[in-house]
């Protein structure tokens, strides 16, 4: 898993070198490179890879990024703040960026804000609860939803659950005989 994440980040880095916007993460529309890396690691804690892909490989980050320019426009600022807050939480606890921590340490930090026990000077009065629920909901949508919205790449979650992918469209154009 670590290898895969490093690959993702490496691909992102080389694409950036190829001349995308300075701050914007390559292939994304809203997140900066640094924010994308942080939120990507966050989503991976929520649905981690094992022998089947997790949120990172399902490209949940692409789903969130795309929707932040569409239906979730109002959540742009909350996402910026959440990425900043989890980074600051990691820096104070471990002296490192959140995305560089091992998943156990990342998960422990997230478990605290899930319970609303994040540092109030960083997260505000709810201890990070609202930010946690926001990322959790969107991670589920990006992982289990339809691939057309950017996540659930290659139907990874549906394959994991054992449900078939979408049938081919256009059956309406064929004539139907008697019931077979």
């Amino acid at each position, binding site marked *: 898993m670590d290898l895969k994440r490093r690959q993702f980040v490496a691909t992102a880095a080389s694409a950036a070198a190829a001349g995308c916007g300075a701050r914007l993460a390559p292939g994304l529309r809203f997140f900066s490179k640094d924010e994308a890396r942080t939120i990507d690691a966050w989503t991976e804690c*929520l*649905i*981690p890879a094992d022998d089947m892909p997790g949120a990172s490989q399902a490209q949940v980050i692409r789903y969130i990024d795309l929707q932040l320019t569409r239906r979730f426009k109002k959540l742009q600022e909350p996402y910026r703040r959440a990425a900043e807050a989890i980074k600051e939480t990691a820096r104070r606890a471990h002296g490192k960026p959140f995305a560089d921590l091992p998943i156990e340490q990342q998960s422990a930090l997230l478990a605290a804000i*899930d319970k609303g026990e994040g540092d109030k000077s960083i997260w505000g009065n709810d201890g990070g609860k609202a930010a946690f629920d926001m990322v959790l909901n969107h991670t589920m949508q990006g992982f289990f*939803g339809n691939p057309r919205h950017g996540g659930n790449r290659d139907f990874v979650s549906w394959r*994991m659950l054992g449900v078939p992918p979408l049938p081919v469209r256009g059956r309406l154009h064929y004539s*139907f005989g008697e019931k077979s």
Partner: protein
Amino acid sequence: MALNKVDAVVVGAGAAGPIIAKELAVAGYHVVLLERGKFYQPSDCRKDDLYNQRTNILGNSSGPDSEGEPRVFVDERGRERVVLPWEGGYNNNASCVGGGTFSYGAMAWRFHPLDFTMKSKYGAIKDSTLDDWPITYDDLEPYYEKAEWEIGVSGDDSNNPFKGARKRPLPMPPVGPPSKEHKLLDAAARKIGLHPFDIPMLRNSVPYNGRPACMRCRWCVGFACEVDAKCGTQNTVLRTALQTGNLELRTECMTREVMVDDKGRATGVKYYDENWRLQEQPASVVVVSCSAIESPRLLLNSKSKLFPQGLGNRHDWVGRNLQGHAYTGALGLFEEDLYDDLGPGASIAICDYNHGNPGLAGGAMLANEFIRLPIQAIGARPPGTARWGKDFKDFMRRNYRRTVAVQGPTQEIPIWDARVEVDPAVKDKWGIPVARLSGSRHEHTFEIGVAMSLKAEAWLKAAGAIQTWRRTGGRGLSGGQHQAGTVRMGKDPKTSAVDENCRVHESDNVYVVDASVHVTNGGFNPVLTIMALAYRAGGHIARQMKGGRA
């Protein structure tokens, strides 16, 4: 400038409007049918788990889906907020030709005979406006049959001893073959003395009415049917009506008000056409069929000399008694894999608990659930299990295909303060005051729900579930896709808004025909009752016109 006068203008092309339009058009009358939404086709079907009428995280695929159509929602603590069509609290149904029938799950229930006589059966209930309907099951029976045959229903309720008498069987057999889940629940129900049967559904199980049979995919409730096997008003009665040449369907037309003269007679409607130009459509008869939130909104926005508080609202009954259904039931985990990807999923039901529950005024039909798409299955976990992380993922992997849900629409006890008003400040994109929703559920509705969830749990246990957990409805305001009750039907103009023919009291030529007129909403999905009422009212209006009385 006014358009040419027609015999009737029908506002709203949902479950009821096209039926009225068809009854009148076939009888030779000229009808204009106004619909604020679009006319979608089966080819517009988009099997999108996040963008549909049931899971509308990214929007409503059959409308409304614009920020210009807000509502105001007031919660139990009196806090109000503006809500958009895809947000909680909006209580959305749909806005398109066919309305909810374009994308529904399509259960085709006749109400139980006792659902029409709730007050006589159970007596008055404290803090409730519970009452009898002014009509009985027997009055509606011929029209239920007409809906079943004209619009098309499959299923087999011959093993349901609790149903009201039917003169004719359903026109189509059940969608088959049964799923693993169906067979398991069927055997278990019989084992514990229940009476399971195949749910009547407005869905072709065989080619019918020139359309094909269901192909059994899992994108059913909330989605347009890709093969047009679901039977809505848009692909049945509307086609018949258009073929007469007497009906003009105008889509993307938003009605602003019903115009009423000094004597209380309607002269027509004012509406914004697809280019947002204000039009006047004069008509001899006006039929309002916009569902239980938008119908009272239109009436309340139609003020006149005789009705300064809104059309039909002289005694404050318009917008009262908003009710829907509290869905309650249980989920069970099983040892074996029960998922066979055979849609629509819901197939087997019992009516053993609709009435006759000791200490309860009503009950619910219980049925297995439609296939839970992966995104919908996230919430189908026992309380206390992990919401995220490895444990969550493991649970989903292990149990998605082994979880079965049984649930039903709990009979709601109507209350006066669950209501639709028009907001004094917020307007929609046409400048029309929007609906303002407030109130909560009656305590007894909650009690019935708890009892029903225990029954559902017992059924799952009998089927061999290794773990079960219950779902009981909330106490918040109920409306949603089963919204009803807000323009009550009754004999007394002081305690109702329309008469037994759906005509507004004290107005000769205005009718409200949709679930708004339901006095109570049964322990069943309401659509077939809406359709039956529309056939009945449509026939009545046609006879009135023939006699020159409308």
